[in-house]
């Protein structure tokens, strides 16, 4: 079983997104996202990392999940999109 953690940094128009991701057997095991972006409502942000745990570490799956959370939680993040969070996570995955 291989576990690896690395940092991915992506700059969106709304700020810098830093991701630390650990995967196990192709799935996200641990994930932490931080940065100087803006996102409303703020508390909904924690759902992103929370719900990405356990899903396949693939771009489409990750972006789809984040988009789903955006719609459900009515998230607004000026200058930062689900694609930007995905990009930061993919960089952490070394893809």
């Amino acid at each position, binding site marked *: 079983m291989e576990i690896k953690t690395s940092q991915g940094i992506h700059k969106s*128009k*709304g*700020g*810098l997104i*830093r991701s630390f991701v650990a995967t196990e057997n192709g799935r996200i095991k641990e994930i*932490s*996202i*931080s*940065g*100087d*972006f*803006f*996102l*409303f*409502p*703020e508390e909904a*942000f924690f759902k992103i990392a929370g719900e990405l745990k356990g899903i396949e570490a693939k771009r489409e799956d990750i972006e789809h999940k984040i988009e789903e959370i955006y719609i459900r939680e009515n998230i*607004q993040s*000026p*200058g930062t999109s689900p694609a930007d969070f995905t990009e930061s996570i993919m960089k952490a995955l070394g893809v």
Partner: protein
Amino acid sequence: MEEWRFIDFGLVDIRDMMAMDEAILKSDEGNTFFFWTPKKSIILGFFQKAEVELDLSQCKDYTITRRISGGGIAFSDDRCRQVNYGVVGTIDNALFPMDITGSYKQICGVLIDTLIHYKLNAAFRPINDVVVDNKKISGNAQTRWEGKLLQNGTLLLDFDIEEMLRISNIPKEKFMDKKIASVREGLTWLDRELGEQRDMEEIKNVMKKKFEERFSIRLKSGSLSGKETKLTEILLPKYYSDEWVYR
């Protein structure tokens, strides 16, 4: 003419200030404009991590807390030459637009009008910066709660770049001169732009006047209400706690 409340908190401990900030947003005392100047401190944005952003071994004599709005670190050195402001307003689509960038632009207009008063080439840079000749002079952060907005921001009068880089979590030995030069190109402060130190009270008075003009209201000096003071006391432990700051 409509009157809004004005409070000048003076030189403050930012943990106390952030608790009062949240209490003003979450109470119901009407639209309010307020000033404060932070003592030596670091305020993390809501989504930042202390150990990722900061070299904590270099921050021992700083007060560190976190705010309820996003954005980047607000760093205050011991020169204490910053005018920080807060605005709490009801989102009405006229004075305070629903559109996030629109509402930033509206409030940042107060800073721009202030800088233009000093004959500087100030402009709004979306999403939330005010620049002079394309150099950032003011950072701003907004959050919303039950139909109201809270915007905090700073107008830099002086700024110690070297000290900011020292506490940042970046490799320090190499390229320090280059880093200082690059920050110097992207950031500026009023004392530098004017080539002299202006009295902070004078600057605050200009800002106050520009605020009144922009919103067509009169600011009336006041203080926290009993309800706000009580809520502040309830919120204080959070801003002093490691769980909140180092989460």
